[in-house]
């Protein structure tokens, strides 16, 4: 007769754990009351999901998409809650890091914690359509007026930023930030016209050690260098083939073929100017160091996470300091 394994110990563990948990939660504190709906002044804004009544002067704004907090900060509104960026703190500027450290969180990229949104007691919720679909919009609307916006393409911070500024009633701040940026841009383009005319290449992380990717105009970083600044794309860079994502991986074997035509090479970096480990490695490979740009010391790392006109202005300043001034000297 086969011996059958004892049952009691095996079920006991999950049952005990479960009962302990029940006991603990049964004796927990009372929840706070939800903020009573305020009968303050409201206005109507046009959002991606229809018209929404938003308070004229919102006091507690919660940002539920990745770029939203900076777009709010750029027009003078400090959100009371945002996504959890603590794990990526190093890729943000000092000002942004201060804001991150001080604010409550409501989940992560593509993983919104709706209870935390409610716990933040917002009177306005702001985001963009990339992460907030209609079903989520419906649930968020049960907590507070929710304004979700979309641009002409994903990550279109100019259009989305303008809509957000309008929704919180600070459209003027947005316009003046835009004007300031355009003015600076015009000045830089005139002063460094000869540097800008040289062939440039913008590269990013590759998918293998020693590899890299090329960034194209129209991509989020490429648009800054090639569309805004107007840098000339080096002729040796191959045509964009993979749709219009704005970047393409390149095999390490083609380092010389693709990058030899560039006199200036720019890469992304964190605000401290450090490159990612893999990119730093690529820059030291024998094939890369033999490139004309590398040999003449014209490979530069620039922080380029632009999400609004405030950070755009910072980017422009750092490009001038890090790239344009040294490049004019050589």
């Amino acid at each position: 007769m086969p011996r059958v394994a004892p049952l009691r110990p095996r079920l006991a563990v999950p049952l005990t754990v479960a009962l302990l948990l029940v006991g603990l939660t049964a004796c927990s504190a009372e929840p706070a009351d939800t903020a009573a709906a305020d009968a303050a002044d409201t206005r109507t804004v046009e959002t991606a999901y229809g018209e929404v009544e938003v308070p004229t002067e919102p006091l507690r704004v919660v940002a539920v998409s990745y770029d939203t907090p900076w777009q709010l900060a750029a027009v003078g509104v400090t959100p009371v809650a945002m996504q959890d960026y603590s794990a990526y703190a190093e890729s943000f500027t000092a000002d942004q890091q201060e804001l991150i450290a001080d604010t409550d969180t409501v989940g992560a990229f593509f993983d919104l914690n709706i209870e935390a949104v409610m716990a933040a007691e917002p009177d306005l919720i702001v985001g963009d359509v990339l992460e907030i679909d209609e079903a989520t919009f419906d649930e968020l609307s049960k907590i507070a007026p929710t304004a979700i916006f979309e641009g002409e393409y994903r990550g279109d911070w100019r259009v989305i930023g303008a809509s957000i500024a309008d929704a919180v009633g600070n459209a003027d701040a947005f316009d003046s930030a835009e004007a300031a940026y355009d003015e600076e841009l015009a000045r830089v383009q005139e002063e460094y016209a000869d540097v800008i005319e040289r062939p440039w290449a913008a590269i990013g992380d590759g998918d293998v050690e020693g590899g890299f990717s090329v960034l194209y105009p129209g991509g989020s970083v490429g648009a800054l260098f090639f569309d805004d600044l107007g840098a000339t794309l080096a002729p040796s860079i191959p045509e964009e083939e993979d749709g219009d994502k704005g970047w393409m991986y390149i095999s390490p074997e083609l380092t010389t073929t693709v990058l030899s035509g560039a006199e200036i090479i720019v890469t992304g970096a964190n605000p401290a100017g450090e490159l990612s480990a893999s990119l730093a490695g690529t820059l030291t490979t024998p094939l890369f160091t033999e490139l004309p740009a590398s040999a003449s010391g014209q490979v530069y790392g620039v922080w380029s996470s632009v999400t609004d006109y405030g950070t755009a202005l910072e980017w422009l300043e750092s490009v001038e300091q890090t790239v344009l001034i040294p490049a004019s000297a050589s």
Partner: protein
Amino acid sequence: MGLIVAVVVLLATIVGSLAVGARYIPPADVLRALVDAVEGRGSGEIHEIVVGLRLPRAFVGAVVGASLGVAGALIQALTRNTLADPGILGVNAGAGFLVTVGIGWFGVGDIQGYVWFSFAGAAAATLLVFVIGNTGPSGATPVRLTLVGVALGALLSGISSMISLLNPTVFDGMRFWGAGTLTSRDEHVLWAVLPFILIGLVLAATVAAPLNAIALGEDLARSLGAGVLRTRITVIVAVTLLAGAATAAAGPIGFVGLMVPHVVRWFVGPDQKWILVYTAVCAPILLLGADVVGRVVVPPQEMQVGIVTAFIGAPVLVYLARRRKITGL
């Protein structure tokens, strides 16, 4: 004989891996670069690509391929499970787990560091699997080892994923290591793990005959003098050395260790000696061949070897499974 054909194909594949790549280099130039390298001179772009990139890659591909193949054949003989691959005893999961810990807690950032953590993790995981698996009424039976391996492997890989998701430095580091690639800027890595691979291959050779005996049944095997427990331990040590070293050098590469032993067995029969020898030759053919294909199929990018291997190998596997009168384990 079939073996000679296989070896010839392998040599051709190696030559192909030197001559073919994302950057087109005429064969004459390839030859000249190799000759120059032998004579100790040579520089410039062509030299860098052929000798600096492709030569180590071919070497790594051949050695790692043979390791994974033989490890796979041993694991299938040990566990008698069709689904068994070298990772089933937790080798990949253990390696990944300790690499995650290394990046997250010890700040390891370079390939050298990854290698030792990877190896240590693979060894520790396999040891743990054996220790747990060897308890119980019948000891380390194939079924029990498989289940313990899967359970522990899942647990470790789950924890690695969790750490990756919580810590972006780890996520970034794992992104490269976790992809499985033959490109390594530092060939010292391969020299470092080569001794372990050689020991593993030697152990594999010694264990072929006892495995044949065990396949006849445990009691019969004992009466033939093949110590069952001793054989199992030797197999596990060999698999750990082979798969652990291969993973340490090239990151986790799947499918080769799973597919090649099956296919080889359908052609050469159940004798482990022939299975191991043919697998050691044919697995590198698959891996290197996949690597070469990956370099030319989507210019100017490269498709990673882990992706191409299954893409090429799997249809072949399915085709053969339909055509031949195949045998189970």
